[in-house]
């Protein structure tokens, strides 16, 4: 005895209603804090607006905000270049180091303790990270140069040297983030079946051969995930550069242009210069860049390798 068609439909309507009822807090939030703001950002990006007057009272300027950023503002181009260096440095150097450390830690006892030590910076507030490293990087009183002198290397000016300021901050970011990457790689490494290594040994593969032909291909999904999420985050990096380069007492004396990244540029454009149109146009350009990079990474890393992992 099957229920009639009307009965079935009523049940499916009720199921749909229940589903949307459970989702309603999230959906209302998506609407108010995601969909509407994105639409507003797009609208603002075509206008000249300073937030002091109502948004609708702003002037329509067409694509001028976009063309200004791309062709007229040298600082925007510099910010993009710096962000490329920063994102590439933090993500790929960080991943290479983390993979090495994760492999080392699988071979020692007390690895949990060391993973824990490495994870502590991940949960440390960025303000504290900036303050700690601002102290360590002081040219005369800081421990960074004291250590360099101990191993007979020339001391550096760190944040005060425009040539290495950005790299000094990359070093901090790698320190602050590597613990998380090590944990994810460790999980990935533990997921590689031991038989593959046994087989490779039978075939006479050395440690390097095992690494190249088993570890790296098997870690492809992990590497893919870490690259995409890492790059999305790194292209928006703000806190450390803001605090160490322009916004705090730890700030070095390097000119802003030697460290400015996109997020800092957008922040200053919006909340210092009050050019909301340019800031929103820049945010969309940033979004397009992040989107492009993600697709690129997906294409490069998806090719070949272990497809079944997805």
């Amino acid at each position: 005895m099957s229920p009639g068609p009307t009965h079935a439909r009523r049940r499916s309507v009720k199921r749909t209603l229940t589903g949307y009822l459970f989702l309603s807090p999230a959906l209302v939030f998506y609407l108010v804090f995601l969909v509407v703001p994105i639409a507003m950002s797009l609208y603002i990006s075509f206008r000249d607006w300073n937030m002091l007057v109502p948004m609708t009272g702003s002037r329509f300027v067409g694509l001028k905000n976009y063309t200004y950023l791309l062709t007229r503002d040298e600082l925007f181009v510099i910010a993009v270049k710096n962000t490329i260096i920063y994102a590439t440095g933090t993500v790929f150097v960080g991943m290479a180091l983390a993979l090495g450390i994760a492999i080392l830690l699988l071979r020692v006892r007390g690895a949990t303790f060391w993973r824990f030590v490495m994870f502590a910076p991940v949960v440390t507030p960025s303000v504290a990270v900036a303050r700690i490293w601002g102290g360590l990087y002081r040219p005369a009183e800081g421990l960074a140069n004291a250590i360099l002198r101990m191993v007979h290397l020339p001391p550096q000016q760190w944040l005060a040297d425009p040539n290495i300021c950005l790299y000094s901050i990359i070093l901090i970011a790698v320190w602050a983030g590597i613990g998380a990457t090590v944990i994810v790689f460790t999980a990935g490494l533990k997921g590689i079946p031991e038989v593959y290594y046994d087989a490779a040994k039978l075939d006479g593969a050395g440690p390097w051969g095992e690494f190249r032909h088993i570890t790296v291909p098997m870690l492809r999904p992990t590497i893919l995930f870490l690259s995409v999420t890492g790059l999305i985050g790194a292209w928006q990096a703000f806190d450390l550069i803001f605090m160490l380069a322009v916004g705090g007492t730890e700030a070095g004396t390097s000119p802003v242009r030697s460290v400015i990244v996109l997020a800092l540029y957008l922040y200053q454009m919006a909340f210092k210069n009050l050019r909301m149109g340019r800031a929103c146009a820049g945010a969309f350009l940033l979004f397009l860049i992040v989107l492009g990079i993600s697709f690129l990474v997906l294409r490069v890393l998806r090719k070949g390798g272990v497809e079944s992992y997805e």
Partner: protein
Amino acid sequence: MSEPLALPRVPAMRKELEPGEGGKSAARQRGRRRRRVLGKLLLHASVLLIGLAMFLPFFWILSASVMTYEEVTAIPPRWVPSTPQWGNYGAVLRDPNVPLLKYFKNSFIVSTAVTLAVLLTSSLAGYALAKLKFPGRDAIFTFTLSTMMFPVFLFLIPVYYILKRFPLLGGNDVLGMGGTGALQSYAALIVPFVVSAWGVFLMRQFMMTIPDELIDAARIDGASDLGIFSMVVMPLVKPALATLAIFTFIGQWNYFLWPMIVTTSAPHLMTVPVGLRLMGTAYSTAVNMNKLLAATVMAIAPSVCVFLALQRYYVKGFVLSGFK
């Protein structure tokens, strides 16, 4: 925790090696054995070195937070204070210029409220996406995932404006004009974060692992979806809730950009990171660096303690986020 230089393992290794090596000459065997031991030593030495390098910044701030001002700024730098100045902590807490305790109170209110809200909204949405079938469900899930790609800078300006123009709040009229809207209240720091796409994703993934039979059985027994959700599903996803709670709490506790933007015009709402940074600029570091560092240690303590106490869940969250 066992010490890293686990040398006692080496003799055991030697024994394992001995069989299969029968035909080789004794000298070559010894050489190979020595290389093994050397490699093991090198391995442990490098792990120790990396660990020390990672810990060094923490060691410095702990040590410098109990130094005198002269010691913090000494040239060449000092590694440890001659006598620990524990008074630095009390001094910065009592300093009337920096309401550190108020920053802590604000951070605690905001982080707790956001965490509770995220737990509720994520599990409700996660249940619908994992265990109910209805048109549009998969599209909503895809949308949830895709939102993680949008840069935060797409939202800062509009959300700031929406909060400022919120009707009937903070002196605003029905059209949202005339006042400061929701900007001068805790709501400005809490409401934009009450739903987390990552949280929805995490809860959905976790709830997918609950067998449908369990839910069907409860339904046959006459339970409503709300009943199934609260009596059957929620108790089973406690580990995921713990993970999400720690992530959200620590994330909010440490969050800097948005609180800074909002509290520029509302200093009474300043959270710990914003206040701490302000202390670095308002305070003259040249005078008070040691106390500044004591305040910094206090700012780190809550997130590190939460992490210490519940690290099992936190680490699990990191691993989970890596494997869909």
